[in-house]
């Protein structure tokens, strides 16, 4: 057969085709039986390897999640820092950026924060602290590498302010809550919701510099016969969510007036619908008679 096949006298290809045709159904039956067994035995042998792989993947996943969360935190800090730098740049203030490292307990009825900058960084008592939106706090006490500041919403915090453009003076004080209280010294002056408030500035610009944005009026309290006018002011900065701030160590040469205020919100255009009505000719009595 070897000789015949070598000589090419044996139809080997045809025989193999026939054999393949006959055996293939049996092969597929056996294959379908063996496949689960093969998978099972394979799983048993590679169980340790798979477990290791899953464990490694879980570790990688946790590491990636941690890195992503760290990156998000860094992105937020960069965003906060950029807005602080923008505000300081616009006001030509010299600032020292700082991180909040601790916050006083609410149970002590005071709103204090601890910053990671101190006298070694040029910080002194009664300097103003700003965040991206505007005024945040003032320095209460300074240590070598840390300082303590009183937040704007503390009940003992008071800042002299003026209303945007009109120049009417008043005093904004903390309430212990998220809103501030504005008391206008002149009860005859105009007070409207939406008016914005900036710091008037203290003597020698300490603790407050003129022109630093404070907040916007959200409610006007109408008390008949009162000698002063009062309103509720929402600060530009959410004092519960700040992490990066800046201490103003020296002011610019000029008063920025209202230049540091954020752009006023654009009024949302009200969509108007124009309906074109083409009057149909009123039926004349003669034509209606004709149809009837």
């Amino acid at each position: 057969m070897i000789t015949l096949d070598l000589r090419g006298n044996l139809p080997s290809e045809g025989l193999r085709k026939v054999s393949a045709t006959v055996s293939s159904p049996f092969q597929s039956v056996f294959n379908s039986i063996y496949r689960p067994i093969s998978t099972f035995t394979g799983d048993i042998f590679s169980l340790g390897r798979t477990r290791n792989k899953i464990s490694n993947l879980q570790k990688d996943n946790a590491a990636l999640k941690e890195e992503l969360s760290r990156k998000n935190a860094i992105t937020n800090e960069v965003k906060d820092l950029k807005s602080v730098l923008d505000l300081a740049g616009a006001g030509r203030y010299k600032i020292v950026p700082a991180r909040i490292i601790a916050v006083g307990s609410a149970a002590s009825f005071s709103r204090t924060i601890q910053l990671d900058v101190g006298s070694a960084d040029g910080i002194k008592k009664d300097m103003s602290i700003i965040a991206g939106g505007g005024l945040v706090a003032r320095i209460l006490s300074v240590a070598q590498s840390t300082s303590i500041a009183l937040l704007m919403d503390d009940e003992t915090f008071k800042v002299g302010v003026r209303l945007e453009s009109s120049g009417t003076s008043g005093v904004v004080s903390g309430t212990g809550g998220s809103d501030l209280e504005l008391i206008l010294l002149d009860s005859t002056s105009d007070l409207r919701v939406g008016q914005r408030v900036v710091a008037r500035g203290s003597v020698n610009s300490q603790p407050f510099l003129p022109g630093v944005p404070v907040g916007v009026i959200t409610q006007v309290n109408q008390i008949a016969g009162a000698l002063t006018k009062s309103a509720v002011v929402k600060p530009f900065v959410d004092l519960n969510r700040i992490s990066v701030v800046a201490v103003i160590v020296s002011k610019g040469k000029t008063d920025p007036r209202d230049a540091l205020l954020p752009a006023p919100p654009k009024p949302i255009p009200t969509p108007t619908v124009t309906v074109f009505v083409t009057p149909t000719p009123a039926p004349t009595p003669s034509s209606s008679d004709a149809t009837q």
Partner: protein
Amino acid sequence: MTKSLFFVISASVILTFQEVVISRIAFPFANPSIFLIFVISWAFLEDQWLAALQGFLAGFILDISPLSVGVIGHWAFVLAAVSYGVSELGVQLRGSRRSPLTLTVVVTAGIFFTLVFFVISGALISLNQGYGFTQTVPGVVFWSLVFTPLISPLIIKLKRVADGVGTSVE
């Protein structure tokens, strides 16, 4: 002495945790005071005079904390008095002292009285503190109701460790 030292170290660690972590989270109403929960719970589990001493020490730690703005000694006075009172109650309820429900109710009430006493005594010594009373007190009391059952097992364990330390040395 050793027990009080253990208490002071624990209280300092908890106050640091409070100021660095808990107070930075924007909780609704007001932030919980883990420090007050710890001090009042400890006082409830302690004997009267030792509780008064430890309350005084805890208050002093709070007074000298850089983030405190009031007069030094105010918290020490308030916490010494409240700790003595709470401990007296604990001695009366000796049987159910370590029950989580009793501890939660007593600690929450204790925190409420501490804050009220702090504001009243502050007003008597002309301090400008406590105007936000109506916002702060309900928030702190609410969160103490939530947090006390969660952290009381840890405080009880710490107290047992401290008692062990105290007896083995003394």
